[in-house]
């Protein structure tokens, strides 16, 4: 190793958010003039790494150096001043400002403009024409298409002539022509010595553009492969690791009648329609990389989001369309993803949190019967083996896993036929996770239908009878129980049908 390695070096970088270790000992060497792809499934630490490089987060440990000089950016601004320009996953434009203003946004000082107006125009025009074709500079950015707005964000990074360019899923919103143009431009920049860190969920793109690929798994960098050694199978097995699931997998129960049916459900105007049937006693997994429509789909099933297509509950008492208001009455219970924002009442007690939607059952002569609440709560607390001090304690005194159990009990108390769970074990410790799996297994044996959206591949393999994998707002693959494995799911995440799946 040289004394002064050129390019961007990350050594032993770690970052933790609360109890979650997002990046553990991250190592990465980004050489000038290469296009280096970062690959990994949900929660593997890609975005955290990008945000560390882009100056949004600061690492807890480890070092980042650029051409041998330590990088300690405290803000995107400082990262940019060092020559690191990141295009983040979200399309970040100020809608009522002109395209021109958006391209140069942040390049100026607080007061000082960096270049003359005419020069700004010609550079912006030049860069945009290379990556997006003709974009009128004076139009408000909000009137452009998503693809064009994404191009503006990329142009914003390019006009700074960075030494290191980071593109975090920046091609996701681009149309095909703009993507091809971008790739030509990226190769040109790399030939000129720019180091490019590229993140994409499209395996074909990764294979097309990468000089090297680094795979991340659970916050660790697992392997770095040269272009010549690149194979999709190898990348997928690196992303999933080799964890045995034979002992932990649950066996499906015999499914009963169709309870819930979605027909011609569309998650985006242009996406393929989805037809979906849920039978009694089934556990169906929903999977996909963040933002590919699975979250929208479970909300459609729950009736909390509206859109084209129908979702109908068929049993027990005849067909009824699900809407925002009737989920409870139809026996469809939905557990949202965000405990804090969407489910919990943090300053209320454990028992109140449990009882709120079902207080109607505890009525006596028009008044609340607190003993009835206590009885019902105790029954659920026992059956879900809830661990708590006193039922009157604030719910915030519980661990994440136990909070989740309380919420599960809340919805089980409505006596549902269908249980829709949106990432139910996020931030839940492994022991409680196992308990929740056991509870779900028991419920499905009793004939309840369960739909689990999960960002954890292992969980889906352990839990589901079949898994729907979402890509680009539609179902890319439906993986039956016999073919369920981390490999088959992750392959589908990245647009590959695995070989077993015929």
């Amino acid at each position, binding site marked *: 190793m040289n004394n002064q390695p050129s390019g961007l070096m990350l050594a032993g970088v770690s970052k933790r958010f609360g109890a979650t270790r997002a990046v553990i000992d991250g190592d990465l060497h980004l050489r000038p003039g290469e296009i280096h792809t970062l690959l990994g499934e949900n929660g593997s630490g890609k975005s955290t790494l990008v945000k560390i490089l882009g100056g949004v987060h600061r690492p807890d440990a480890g070092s980042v150096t650029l051409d041998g000089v330590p990088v300690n950016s405290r803000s995107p601004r400082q990262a940019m001043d060092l020559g690191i320009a990141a295009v983040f996953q979200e399309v*970040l*434009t100020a809608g009522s400002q002109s395209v021109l203003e958006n391209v140069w946004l942040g390049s100026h000082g607080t007061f000082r403009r960096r270049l003359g107006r005419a020069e700004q125009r010609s550079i912006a025009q030049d860069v945009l024409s290379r990556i997006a074709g003709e974009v009128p500079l004076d139009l*408000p950015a909000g009137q452009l298409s998503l*693809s064009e707005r994404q191009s503006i964000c990329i142009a914003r990074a390019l006009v700074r002539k960075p030494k290191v360019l980071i593109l975090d899923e920046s091609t996701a919103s681009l149309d095909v022509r703009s993507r091809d143009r971008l790739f030509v431009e990226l190769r040109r920049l790399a030939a000129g010595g720019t180091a490019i860190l590229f993140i994409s969920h499209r395996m074909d793109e990764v294979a097309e553009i990468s000089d090297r690929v680094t795979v991340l798994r659970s916050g660790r960098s697992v392997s770095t492969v040269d272009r010549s050694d690149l194979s999709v199978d190898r990348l997928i097995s690196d992303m999933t690791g080799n964890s045995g699931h034979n002992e932990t997998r649950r066996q499906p129960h015999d499914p009963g009648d169709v309870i819930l049916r979605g027909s011609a459900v569309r998650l985006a105007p242009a996406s393929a329609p989805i037809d979906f049937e849920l039978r009694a006693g089934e556990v169906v997994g929903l999977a996909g990389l963040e933002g590919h429509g699975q979250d929208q789909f479970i909300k459609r099933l729950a009736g909390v989001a509206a859109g084209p297509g129908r979702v109908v509950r068929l049993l027990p008492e005849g067909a009824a369309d699900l809407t925002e208001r009737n989920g409870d009455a139809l026996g469809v219970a939905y557990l949202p993803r965000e405990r804090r924002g969407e489910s919990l009442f943090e300053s209320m007690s454990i028992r109140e949190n449990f009882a709120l939607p079902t207080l109607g059952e505890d009525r006596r002569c028009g008044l609340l019967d607190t003993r009835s609440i206590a009885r019902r709560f105790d029954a659920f607390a026992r059956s879900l083996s809830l661990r708590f001090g006193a039922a009157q304690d604030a719910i915030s005194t519980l661990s994440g896993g136990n909070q989740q159990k309380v919420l599960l009990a809340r919805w089980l108390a409505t006596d549902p036929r269908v249980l829709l769970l949106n990432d139910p074990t996020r931030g839940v410790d492994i022991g409680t996770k196992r308990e929740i799996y056991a509870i779900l297994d028991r419920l499905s044996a009793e004939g309840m239908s369960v739909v689990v959206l999960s960002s954890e591949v292992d969980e889906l393999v352990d839990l589901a009878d079949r898994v729907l994998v979402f890509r680009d707002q539609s179902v890319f693959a439906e993986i039956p129980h016999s073919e369920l494995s981390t490999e088959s799911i992750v392959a589908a995440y990245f647009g590959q049908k695995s070989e077993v799946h015929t």
Partner: protein
Amino acid sequence: MNRVLPLFQRWPFAFALLLALVLLVLNLIVSPSFLSPARLPGTLATLAPFVLVGFASTPSILAGGIDISVGPLATFSNCLFVAILIPAGLGNWHLAAPIILAVAAGIGALNGILVAVVRLHPVVATTGMLFLLVGLSLTIAQNPVAAPNNWTEVFAGGIGIVPGALLTIGVAGLIWFALRRTAFVSNLLATGESDVSAYGSGVNIKAIRILAYTLGGLFAGIAGIALTAIVQSSQSSLASTYALLGLAAAVLGGTSLAGGRGGLLGALFGAVSIYLLQQLLTASGVAPSLIQFAYGAVLVVGVVLGATLLAPRLKRNAS
């Protein structure tokens, strides 16, 4: 209508401008001498504090926040000048003007720091400041103190043929115009529209926010001078009158409370509309109690029009 709507969307202040023109015509019908050269300087002088308080409200709203304390800051500047600076022998314009403006800008900056650094909600921070300033004004000048024939008089009358009020409004306008030539206003609008985008692109959003409130404070200081010009005394009791007028003027002028859209022209036409409405109602003999009611009605209608009909539909654009 299809041709008119884009105009309104391109120029957020168009509604207020139109309203101001209509009200002006109505005023001329009710009292034909409304715009006579003899009355004009006086009319403009009473208008100036409205406009300037509207200006003062604008930068913080553009930055995505709100400053409720600019009205009381204007009256505090008035009391500071009349009840403290003049008795202390600092009443000369070349001493008093810089002091007033520096204090007002400083108080604005303090608001900005409370919002951007301490991260208080802007309503909380500036409401606190509002009560603080009202209390302070009452402490230093509980009863009106007369200050006849001080230098601010020129702004109530005229310099040669130029109405003095054009100077106070003009100075504030010039400051804004100069800032527009720098990157500041672009940064300000971007921060207000989407602070995530601005931050991610490298804009120092803390500094921009603090400066926005500082600028608002500075304009409020100028408003204090324009107010002193017409009352020629300390008027701590006026604080409540101006407290929300500035916001009303800015919002009526098409400045979006969501941040990122609008400008000083909106506040100008908004304030002119409110002032003309007041004049019209007074001249037509409407009871003063109803005037407040009319303010409210115009504001609600204006905001509803601005927010629903005329706001550009930019956000959802199918790719």
